[in-house]
C-alpha cells in the first residue's frame, strides 16, 4: 500500500503536535435539542434548563445542596425560612438580596399574555414569600410542602433591578402582580437585555433556533468558570451531532447514541463520559381487576391484577442482558422505581431473573398458556427505547405471553397515556425532586389536597403504600421522610404495579483532552467540563 507524500507529512505533523490543542479558552457544545428561551420560567425541559443555569442560579443547587441559599430550616410546619448567601452580585453589579427572591417569585407567577409559566406548578402550594431584612426569606405554604427544598431549584433568581419595582418591600401575590407593571418580556431576555442573573456566565446572544453565545462572568462569587467564552448549538439528529464533533465543529456533544460509542473508542482524539442519571425506565401495568386495555386472556378478569403474573413478568426480563448488550454497560440495572443512588432512596434487594420460575408463577396464576398483551412504547423518547421494548417483548414472549409491540411517536403515545388507552406501557421518569416524587404521582391513590396520584395509570391502590406516601408528603424531617419512602417503595416493589428496568445514563462525547465530570440530572453545563 502506498501512502502519499502529503498523507505522510500530515501524519508526521500530527505525531509531532499531538491533536491540535483546544482553542484558547473557548468551548463549543452541541445540545441534542434546542433551548426554547432565555426567559427562565415559561419552559421546562433539560435543554432550556441547561442553558439558563449558566446565567441564572437558584437558591438550591442541582444536587440539592445550597447554592444562593446558605441554609434553610422549617421554622413552622408551613414555613420554610431560607438564609441567603451574602456578598453576591448580579451581572449588572446589583447586590443579590431577599428582595430579588420575592421579585423572582412574582415574575414566576406572573402570566405573560394570559399564559402562565410551565414551571409555575412547582410554586402551587406557596401562599406568601416574605423578605426579612436583606438576607432572609420566608416561604409560607397553604399545605405541607416539604418538597419545596428541592423544587426551589426551578426558581431561577433574577435581579429586581430588571423592572421598576414599588418603593419598600415587594408584596408577593399568587397572580404575580406584586405591584409591578413592567416585567421584562421574553424578547428582552432572548435579546440578552433582561438576562441578568448571578451565574458564572453572561449571555451574549441567543438565537431562536437554540444557539447561544456566553462569556465568563469574571466577577462570579464562586469558583470562576474555566472557559472564557462558550458557544452552544442545538442539533437534534444524533448522527449529525457526532459528525460535527468528528469534524471539529464542537468540543463536546450531548447524547451520542450507544452505537456510536464504539467509533469513539477506536478514535484517540475523542472519548466519552457516561454518568448514571436520575431517569428510571420502567413498565407500567394496569392492575385494574375489571380488565385493562389491550390485555386479554381465555378466562375473565385482568391477568395483570394477579400479583403472580406481575412477578412472573419481572422475573422473565434479563435486565443485565439489556444493560450489557443494548447499552454496552451505559445503563444501570434498576431494583426500584427511583434510582437507587438517589439521595434518600432505600436499599432494596435486586430483582430476580428466573424465566423457569416465571413460567411456574404464570401457571400457578392460571395462565399456563400465557395471555395476550399489547405493549406500548414511545419510539422517539428514550435512548434505545424501541430496542429495549423489543428486548422486553422477546423475554415476555419466552414465558408464553403473546406480546403485540406497538411503538408510537411521543405525541401519539402521550395522548393515549393521558386517556388511559394503554394497559401496559414503557415509561421513563426523571427524579429531580427526590426518590418518592414519582411514586407519589404514579402509584398513590388520588389525593387532591396533597397532590398525590395524578398519574396513577396503574390504577394501583394499596393501603400500606398510601399510608406511607401520605405521611411522606407532609414530613419535613429528612430522616423520617426517608423512612416513609422506604416503606412505600418496599411495598411497591412487592406488588410491582410498575416493573423497573434500568436507570439511564447520560453520555457526553468529547475531545479526549477534555475531562467531564457529568451531572445526574441530564443537563449539560460548562462547569462540568475541564481541560486535562
Amino acid at each position: 500500500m502506498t501512502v502519499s507524500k502529503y498523507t505522510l507529512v500530515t501524519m508526521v505533523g500530527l505525531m509531532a503536535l499531538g491533536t491540535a490543542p483546544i482553542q484558547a479558552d473557548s468551548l463549543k457544545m452541541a445540545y441534542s435539542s434546542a433551548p426554547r428561551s432565555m426567559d427562565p420560567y415559561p419552559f421546562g425541559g433539560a435543554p432550556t434548563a441547561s442553558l439558563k443555569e449558566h446565567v441564572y442560579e437558584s437558591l438550591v443547587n442541582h444536587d440539592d445542596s445550597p447554592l444562593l441559599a446558605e441554609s434553610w430550616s422549617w421554622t413552622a410546619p408551613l414555613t420554610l425560612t431560607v438564609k441567603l448567601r451574602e456578598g453576591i452580585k448580579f451581572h449588572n453589579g446589583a447586590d443579590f438580596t431577599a428582595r430579588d427572591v420575592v421579585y423572582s417569585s412574582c415574575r414566576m407567577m406572573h402570566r405573560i399574555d394570559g399564559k402562565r409559566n410551565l414551571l409555575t406548578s412547582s410554586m402551587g402550594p406557596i401562599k406568601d414569600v416574605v423578605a426579612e431584612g436583606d438576607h432572609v426569606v420566608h416561604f409560607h405554604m397553604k399545605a405541607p410542602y416539604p418538597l419545596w427544598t428541592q423544587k426551589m431549584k426551578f426558581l431561577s433568581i433574577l435581579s429586581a433591578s430588571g423592572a421598576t419595582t414599588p418603593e419598600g418591600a415587594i408584596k408577593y401575590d399568587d397572580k404575580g402582580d406584586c405591584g409591578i407593571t413592567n416585567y421584562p418580556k421574553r424578547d428582552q431576555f432572548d435579546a440578552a437585555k433582561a438576562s441578568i442573573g448571578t451565574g458564572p456566565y453572561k449571555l451574549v446572544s441567543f438565537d431562536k433556533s437554540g444557539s447561544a453565545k456566553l462569556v465568563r462572568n469574571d466577577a462570579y462569587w464562586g469558583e470562576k468558570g474555566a472557559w472564557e467564552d462558550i458557544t452552544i448549538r442545538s442539533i437534534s439528529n444524533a448522527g449529525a451531532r457526532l459528525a460535527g464533533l468528528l469534524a471539529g465543529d464542537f468540543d463536546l456533544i450531548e447524547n451520542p447514541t450507544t452505537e456510536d460509542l464504539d467509533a469513539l473508542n477506536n478514535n484517540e482524539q475523542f472519548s466519552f463520559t457516561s454518568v448514571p442519571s436520575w431517569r428510571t425506565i420502567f413498565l407500567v401495568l394496569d392492575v385494574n381487576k375489571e380488565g385493562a386495555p389491550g390485555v386479554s386472556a381465555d378466562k375473565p378478569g385482568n391477568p395483570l391484577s394477579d400479583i403472580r403474573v406481575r412477578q412472573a413478568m419481572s422475573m422473565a426480563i434479563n435486565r443485565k442482558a439489556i444493560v450489557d448488550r443494548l447499552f454496552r454497560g451505559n445503563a444501570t440495572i434498576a431494583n426500584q422505581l427511583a434510582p437507587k443512588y438517589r439521595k434518600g432512596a432505600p436499599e432494596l434487594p435486586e430483582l430476580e431473573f428466573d424465566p423457569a420460575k416465571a413460567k411456574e408463577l404464570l401457571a400457578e396464576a392460571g395462565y399456563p398458556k400465557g395471555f395476550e398483551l399489547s405493549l406500548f412504547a414511545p419510539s422517539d423518547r428514550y435512548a434505545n427505547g424501541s430496542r429495549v421494548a423489543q428486548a422486553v417483548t422477546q423475554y415476555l414472549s419466552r414465558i408464553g405471553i403473546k406480546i403485540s409491540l406497538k411503538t408510537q411517536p411521543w405525541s401519539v403515545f402521550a395522548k393515549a397515556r393521558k386517556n388511559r388507552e394503554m394497559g401496559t406501557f414503557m415509561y421513563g421518569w426523571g427524579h429531580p425532586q427526590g426518590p418518592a416524587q414519582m411514586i407519589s404521582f404514579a402509584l398513590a391513590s388520588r389525593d387532591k389536597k396533597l397532590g398525590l396520584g395524578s398519574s396513577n395509570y396503574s390504577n394501583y391502590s394499596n393501603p400500606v403504600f398510601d399510608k406511607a406516601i401520605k405521611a411522606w408528603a407532609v414530613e419535613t424531617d429528612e430522616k423520617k421522610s426517608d423512612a416513609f419512602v422506604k416503606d412505600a417503595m418496599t411495598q411497591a416493589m412487592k406488588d410491582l404495579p410498575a416493573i423497573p428496568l434500568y436507570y439511564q445514563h447520560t453520555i457526553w462525547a468529547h475531545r479526549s483532552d477534555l475531562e467531564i465530570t457529568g451531572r445526574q440530572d441530564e443537563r449539560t453545563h460548562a462547569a462540568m467540563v475541564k481541560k486535562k
Partner: protein
Amino acid sequence: MSKQDPTRLEKIWKAFRGHPIAIAGLIGITFFLLVAFFAPLLAPQNPYDQTQLDILDGLLPPMSQLGTGQTSWLGTDALGRDILSAVMYGLRISLFVSFVAVIVGSGLGVFLGLLAAMKRGWVETVIMRSVDLKMSFPGILLALMLLAMFGTGVDKVIYALIIGAWASKARLVRSVALSEMKKEYIDAARLAGIGNLRIMLRFLLPNSISPVLVVLPMAISGAITAEATLSFLGVGVPITEPSLGLLIANGNDYLLSGKWWISIFPGLVLVAMVLCINVVADRIRDHANPYLRGKE
C-alpha cells in the same frame, strides 16, 4: 384470434429478445419474487418470532455463530435478528406494500385523471382541487392520523401510501389526456357513437398512459422509500416485523460505528431490486412506444 397471431408469451419474448440487460432484470425480479414468496421456507430464522430472537446474539458480524449453533451469514442486528432472514422477510413486506399501494394508487390516479380530462366541468374541478389538497397534506401527518386512529400495522402503511400515490398520476394523466382530447380521432370516435367509457379505455387510456408508465418504476421505488421514510420517522410498519426500509433505517444508527452489515445488506437488496424493476420497465416502455418499435 386467428392462428397466425403470436401468443401473448411470444409477444413478451419478442420485447426482450436481444436485450441482455432487460433479461437479467427479468431474471432478477423473478428471483426476488421467489425469495419473497418462499421466505418462510428459505430463511434460516423466523425474524418475526420473538421467542427465536435473543439480544445476546445481537450485533454479530457476518459469518458468526448464533446461540442456537446456526451460522448467521450476513450477521445480526442489535436484537439478534439474523440479517439474511430479516432481509428475506423484509423483501416480502416491502414488495407487497409498494406493489399494492402503487397499483391501487396509480390505477385510481389514472382513472380520475382521465375522468377529469373527459368530463371537464365540476368533475374536473373536484378532482383537481383534491389533487391540490393532497399535495399540500404532509404524508407524515396522514400516517400519524392513521396510526393514532387505527394503530400500527402494515395495512395502515398501505393506505397512507395509496393516498400518497394517486394524486401525481391523476395530474399527469389529465395533462396528457387534455391534449389527446383535442385530437381528431376522439372526435371521430364520438361521431361514430362510441360510448364515453369505451373511448376512455380504448382510446384515451393507451394514448395517455405512457408518462405514467415512465414514472411507474419510480413510483414503486418511491413507495418503497416512502415506506422506509415513514419507518425512519417512527410511523411505519411495526418494528417487530421490519421491512427493507425499516432495516435500513435501523442500520442507519450503526453506520458511523463500523457495523455496516445492518444497513448495507438491506440497502443493496433494495437498490438491486429497484434496478431490476427499472430496466424491465424501460424495456417494456420502449417496446410499447410505436415510434421506437418502428426503428427496430
